[in-house]
């Protein structure tokens, strides 16, 4: 059984890398922009649907991935527009876009599930050849991390980061925070859709339900990744790499749990518990240290 588990690890690594790209998208909204974006659950499927349909029609997979990326960009921008121009709360704006995408995705695919067979289509990667898939995914991830690192170091990138850190100050420094929020959401969902485009090629199909709960997996990868690199010097590229690694760790643990014979019905709950713990424990720690301090202070005053 142990040997079997080892055999499943490369697959987990590949899956982790695919979902890691999505997690980087989630990191950009959740941590950089301070925006809880639920568009993700829909836009990952949009990416997969667009890519699957285009490749099936004979388009070059790189070009199909680019189209998927652009569609994700538009989806993210839609959430941003709903939030900024119609004043809809962040979470609800994401849910509305998600609803829109559900219908759009169905229309794109024509049915709920569409296979993309690796043997007969010119896909870039597939789980039939995991080593090559890992190489390709690693290359794409590395290139994207470098690109994002460079972008968030530019004036425009800095203005997006500033918006997430302090929107009032950003406006006082002449930053159009409505625009930067929309742009940030668009970039994030472009990455998510790209991840979906890679996922459908890797697993050989696109499914209308494939994005369900994706945002929680993304958040799990983000919090695990942050824990992994928390002791290292703070650096944006390193944080992104940490998130990628977080997704890989997540999938390795996931595989292990399946192998141990854990009831797979609980897997979604497991993801939610991971996110809940990682976000909740630091908060509780802070609360406890505050009460502790105030109690101590009370004693000395008495």
């Amino acid at each position, binding site marked *: 059984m142990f040997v079997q588990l080892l055999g499943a690890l490369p697959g987990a690594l590949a899956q982790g890398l695919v979902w890691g790209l999505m997690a980087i998208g989630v990191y950009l909204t959740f941590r950089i922009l301070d925006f809880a974006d639920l568009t993700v659950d829909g836009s990952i499927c949009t990416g997969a649907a667009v890519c699957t349909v285009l490749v099936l029609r004979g388009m070059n997979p790189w070009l199909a991935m680019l189209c998927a990326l652009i569609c994700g960009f538009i989806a993210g921008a839609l959430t941003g527009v709903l939030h900024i121009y119609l004043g809809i709360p962040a979470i609800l704006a994401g849910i509305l876009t998600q609803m829109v995408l559900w219908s759009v995705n169905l229309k794109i695919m024509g049915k709920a599930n569409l296979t993309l067979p690796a043997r007969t289509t010119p896909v870039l990667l597939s789980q039939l050849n995991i080593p090559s898939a890992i190489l390709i995914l690693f290359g794409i991830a590395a290139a994207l991390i470098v690109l994002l690192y460079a*972008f968030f*170091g*530019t*004036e*425009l*990138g*800095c*203005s997006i*980061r*500033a918006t*997430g*850190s*302090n929107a*009032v*100050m*950003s*406006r*006082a*420094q*002449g*930053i*159009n*925070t409505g625009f930067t929020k929309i742009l940030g959401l668009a970039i994030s969902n472009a990455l998510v859709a790209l991840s979906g485009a890679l996922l459908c090629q890797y697993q050989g199909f696109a499914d209308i339900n494939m994005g369900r709960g994706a945002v929680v997996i993304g958040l799990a990868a983000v919090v695990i990744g942050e824990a992994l690199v928390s002791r290292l010097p*703070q650096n944006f590229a390193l944080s992104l790499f940490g998130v990628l690694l977080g997704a890989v760790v997540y999938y390795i643990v996931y595989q292990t749990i399946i192998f141990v014979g854990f009831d797979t019905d609980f897997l979604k709950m497991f993801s939610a518990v991971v996110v809940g713990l990682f976000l909740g424990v630091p908060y509780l720690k802070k609360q406890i240290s505050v009460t502790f301090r105030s109690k101590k202070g009370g004693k000395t005053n008495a």
Partner: protein
Amino acid sequence: MLELCNVTKVFNRGTIDEKIALDHLSLTLSDGDFVTVIGGNGAGKSTMQNAICGTWLPDAGKIVLDGIDVTALPEYKRAKYLGRVYQDPQMGTAPGMRIEENLALAARRGQRRGLRFGIHQKEREAYKTALSELGLGLESRLSAKVGTLSGGQRQALTLLMATMKKPKLLLLDEHTAALDPKTAAKVMELTEQIVTENKLTTLMITHNMRDAIRYGNRLIMLHEGRVILDISGEEKSKLTVSDLIEMFGRASGSEFVSDRAILS
């Protein structure tokens, strides 16, 4: 330099919480004026500055800055002309970004932000010099996150950011109120130094009557959204705190109340 003409702002109009925060407020500042603003709680001081900054649009009236009608200009567009320091030290800086990155953001106020580098090596040297003039030791911590700075350090940094690109108008809203007395004095000293050196037109809200008298060339008092006192020049330099309180009583027909006013 600044002209407020009959600016009116009503919050929660038509409800029981209706509040006329600015009531046909008119005020004209000349080039180089350093005006201190006092007034009780809820007098409309912060609201006046928010109107100038464009936090929201006024219900009526006109705001002209150096000949430019900014009344309907969105906040981020008029930011190019304005420098601002808030009462809350958290408000003026991006805590998640480095000191140098915050300064670089401020250095680009009013410019298009494109795909050029967010900060250049050359700038770092300039920032070091500027920070060392604050005398707080920040020049050796360029790459520290602003979130790790103390309130006083943040206010000094915000002040530097507000004035690095010379604004047409500097707005200070009780920017020393959240600091301990010693730090407050230091930040106030820096403020005067920067304002004088750059000949900045300044509108400074304060609850400290002594500061209001000591600094600037003109003093105005707000009450219920209007200017009820406007003293400048020789007359202002001779003012005492008790004069001010008495004048307030005469002009407003009520007693000066402010839970935070520092009278002595």
